[in-house]
């Protein structure tokens, strides 16, 4: 803000300028720093919740005085207000424990992004063109209300649908209840790197449809099948914290760590033993290890009786998984299998983890059940140093009864494939109005799913996201949400602690733009629609709804909170609610049940002679599935294994590269049965000769000035194979061919030490 501009614009100051969506004036806590109490140069700390991934890390926001150019009541102005300066982990929070991952550190740029959408928009150009004109909130909301009334008049309630990124807690519930009360089906979720296969396998093995939590800090031996648990998978901050203790937190004890994967991940780079395995055979290797332990009497079959018995041949000691047979299938030497098995048996407690690519094969379910069985053999289930399930502390909206129906928490979700078919008119009911919240399937779903065509069939699409991306450019109306720092937030992590955790936070700063919290917008629409929708959603605001949900938790479980009002105050002070006592949840696990599961071999798309390489897309350190590619700090983060910035690359084994005549930085073409792309080659020893890998995240057609048209999108090559048990995409099951195209360009961060030139980056 320069001085001239400052003088030109009027100053809109004071708490009176707060938007109506900021809640009741009589609410007990002051949510914004009153301007007069701001001391220049003195920081205040406020809790928040990281929106970066599903881990749900608790955050502390450093708030200081700043001059923000804002819009209030349609008027531009400068407000001296508290602005967020830095995010740290919340030390009280059981998941983040005072720490954050690199993406959590960069999440502050979501708030200050120059291309964030600051007010409602109405489409004027063709869909996908990104041409919009501004609209005021009243007009924007009535546009949507009219559309919904039209559905109501035609009794076409079921043609309303919602597609969101994975959401939990009260925000998800409000959307689900809105749909239910309107008469539509449950919301759908789209996520490229979904862990649903593992949830379903855990349901079968342990009776818990949930991702596990690992007690790494007390483990002496950890074997991970493909899980990037120190980088991008599940709850990386909590897992890394425990990993540090596993290595050096106990005098005289250093836990051993083995990683099984065909391409060395950031996590795998830390392993004591890195075991490359043929893609899709991870489950066979896990059962090979179990076989050796059972044969040698290192474990008894009964120790894992129920969970193991799901595997065909368990009672006979898994005769089909002798080391030699397993070597033929997995490519891991029989002697190495035997050695790993004896180490696992000797170094207790030991625990096995599965995540990522092994689940993303057509036999992902089998792989997961096999690793669950290995955990049972290791007797790690529910034990110190093993795996367990986080106790559930879901806060839920109270039920609302009316004469005709009861609005309660609609728990289910509609599968994304069903929604796709509905949009395309393959099955009924069709979709006439689609509510879209931050899901980006145009970018992150295989071409063969024809998402663009499906969206084109939907007469009216409303997006609530904060950015124009590959999918939201199809929206006819955009009602942008606040940033997480400007809004109430809540989340209910499913993994990462042995305590029950709910993350809740008040706004850390006032909104910069003319945006509104999506939950508040839905409640406003419910009010305007009236009837059963407004009866089912009686809350004035998201804050109201959150308070109602939080006050329903059992106050007795928390030592400091005696009454429900105490709970609400406590929750706001500490940034959430968690149980004080460590709970053992193993007793809550049910015994495994169901028919025995036979070995499933992975299927791949593409003929082996025409497409000789396995193709492995992986969540990138900087962007995960691409949803953070618009953050400049993430674009300029050197990938830790390659030092590459601002681009995409194709990882190729040196011997393969030599055979193909490819050197570092050459442009190569990667082609599958589905399409082709070009990207520079990165020659890396940490990848099997018959595998090529690419980070996911770049290649957006539209995603702000920093990510649009940058790099290549490996998802475009993926065949639409699915894991049958969960219906999720088998994103590791495509085969490709690779050819050199010419000179390319790869932007690497120099770094290095002049005195030791050979040792550093390769």
């Amino acid at each position, binding site marked *: 803000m320069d001085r001239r501009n400052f003088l030109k614009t009027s100053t809109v100051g004071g708490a009176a300028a707060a938007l109506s969506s900021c809640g009741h004036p009589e609410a007990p806590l002051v949510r914004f720093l009153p301007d007069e109490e701001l001391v220049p140069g003195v920081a205040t700390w406020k809790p928040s919740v990281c929106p970066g991934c599903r881990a749900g890390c608790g955050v502390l926001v450093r708030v200081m005085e700043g001059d923000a150019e804002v819009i209030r009541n349609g008027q531009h102005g400068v407000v001296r207000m508290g602005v967020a300066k830095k995010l740290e982990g919340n030390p009280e929070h059981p998941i983040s424990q005072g*720490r954050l991952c*690199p993406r959590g550190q960069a999440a502050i740029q979501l708030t200050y992004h120059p291309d964030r959408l600051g007010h409602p928009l109405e489409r004027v150009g063709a869909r996908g063109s990104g041409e919009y004109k501004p609209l005021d909130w009243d007009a924007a909301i009535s546009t949507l209300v009219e559309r919904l009334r039209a559905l109501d008049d035609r009794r076409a309630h079921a043609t309303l649908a919602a597609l969101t990124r994975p959401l939990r807690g009260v925000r998800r519930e409000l959307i689900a209840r809105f749909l239910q009360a309107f008469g539509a089906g449950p919301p759908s979720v789209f996520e490229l790197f979904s862990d649903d296969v593992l949830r379903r396998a855990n349901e079968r093995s342990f009776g818990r449809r949930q991702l596990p939590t690992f007690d790494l800090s007390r483990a002496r031996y950890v074997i991970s099948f493909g899980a990037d648990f120190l980088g991008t998978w599940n709850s990386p901050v909590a897992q890394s914290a425990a990993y540090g203790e596993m290595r050096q937190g106990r005098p005289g004890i250093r836990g051993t760590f083995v990683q099984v994967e065909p391409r*060395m991940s*950031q996590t795998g780079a*830390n392993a004591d033993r890195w075991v490359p395995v043929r893609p899709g055979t991870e489950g066979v290797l896990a059962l090979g290890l179990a076989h050796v332990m059972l044969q040698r009497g290192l474990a008894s079959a009964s120790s894992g009786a129920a969970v193991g018995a799901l595997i065909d041949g368990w009672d006979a000691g898994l005769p089909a998984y002798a080391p030699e047979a397993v070597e033929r299938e997995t490519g891991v030497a029989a002697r190495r299998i035997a050695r790993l098995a004896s180490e696992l048996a000797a170094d207790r407690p030991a625990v096995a983890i599965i995540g990522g690519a092994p689940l993303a094969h057509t036999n992902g379910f089998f792989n997961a059940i096999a690793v669950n069985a290995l955990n049972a053999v290791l007797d790690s289930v529910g034990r110190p140093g093993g795996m367990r399930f986080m106790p559930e502390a879901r806060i839920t909206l109270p039920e609302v009864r009316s004469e005709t129906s009861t609005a309660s928490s609609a728990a289910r979700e509609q599968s994304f494939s069903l929604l796709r078919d509905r949009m395309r008119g393959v099955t009924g009911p069709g979709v006439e109005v689609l509510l879209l919240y931050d899901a980006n399937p145009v970018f992150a779903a295989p071409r063969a799913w024809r998402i663009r065509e499906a969206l084109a069939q939907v007469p009216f699409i409303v997006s609530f996201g904060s950015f124009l991306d590959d999918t939201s450019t199809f929206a006819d109306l955009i009602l942008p949400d606040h940033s997480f720092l400007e809004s109430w937030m809540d989340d209910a992590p499913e993994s990462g602690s042995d305590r029950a955790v709910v993350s809740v936070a008040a706004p850390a700063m006032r909104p910069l733009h003319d945006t509104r919290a999506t939950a508040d917008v839905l409640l406003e629409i419910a009010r305007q629609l009236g009837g059963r929708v407004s009866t089912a959603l009686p809350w004035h605001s998201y804050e109201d709804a959150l308070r109602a949900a939080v006050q329903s938790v059992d106050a007795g479980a928390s030592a400091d909170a005696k009454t429900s009002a105490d709970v609400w105050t406590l929750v706001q002070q500490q940034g959430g609610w968690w149980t004080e006592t460590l709970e053992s949840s193993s007793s809550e696990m049910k015994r495994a049940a169901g028919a025995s599961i036979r070995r499933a071999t992975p299927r791949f798309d593409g003929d082996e002679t025409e497409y000789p390489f396995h193709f492995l897309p992986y969540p990138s350190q900087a962007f995960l599935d691409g949803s953070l590619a618009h953050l400049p700090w993430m674009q300029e*983060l050197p990938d830790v294994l390659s030092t590459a910035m601002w681009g995409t690359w194709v990882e190729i084994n040196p011997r393969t590269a030599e055979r193909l005549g490819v050197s570092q930085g050459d442009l190569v073409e990667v082609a599958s049965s589905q399409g082709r792309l070009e990207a520079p080659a990165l020659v890396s020893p940490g990848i099997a000769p018959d595998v090529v890998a690419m980070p996911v995240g770049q290649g957006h057609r539209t995603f702000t000035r920093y990510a649009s048209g940058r790099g290549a999108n490996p998802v475009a090559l993926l065949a639409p194979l699915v894991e049958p048990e969960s219906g999720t995409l088998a994103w590791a099951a495509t085969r490709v061919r690779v050819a050199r195209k010419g000179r390319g360009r790869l*932007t690497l961060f120099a770094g290095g030490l002049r005195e030791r030139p050979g040792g550093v980056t390769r």
Partner: protein
Amino acid sequence: MPHRWGMVVDLDRCTGCEACVVACRAENNVPTVGEAEAARGRAIHWIRVERYVDGEFPDVRVKFLPVFCQHCDAAPCEPVCPTYASYHTADGLNAQVYNRCIGTRYCANACPYTVRFFNFFNPVWEKPLHLQLNPDVSVREVGVMEKCTFCVQRIKAAEIAAKAEDRPLRDGEVVPACAQACPSRALVFGDLNDPDSEASRLAGSHRATHLLGELGTQPKVFYLQREGGHDRQDREGDQ
């Protein structure tokens, strides 16, 4: 006794996650330069994570190594600076006085750790990204060198707070941004003159080494080497 600030990096805890890298950028107003300038080697990172890759497929070993200014007691960057912009403070910090720096870049050439970065142009924060800037840290302009300061603004703030309460600084009261973010607690900062500080205690570990210590730079950063000796035996046994 004055403080003698130092850092211990436990390479057995470091996972290469780079939370430290982003935390440093956020705390210290380190600008991004964009792809074109990054391709010319002008990206600025006060802390980076190096990787040592050893062996060939399938016997590949990687070691991550977070590298930042080592705050050497015998710093090669200091005597070469004609304007004394690079100098040593009483509590052992290797400091850079931005308004003395005339951009000869001799210091960058003298530093064996490649941790000094030159501002080839004025930094840009596209609005409203500038609202995130830390008011405790000056923004550097074209023509000056910059590098890790051990988050001197945090050291000063803690010293002022302690002085206001008329008490000595407590161990652990000063935490640089990188160390605060580090999920696996690989980075420990503290007073090396205090034998009871956690940093001093760890610096006495049998695993402690200096980076390029043989050059005689006397760094105040200690690296605790990774363990896990039986890996080679595993390889020899199998292949």
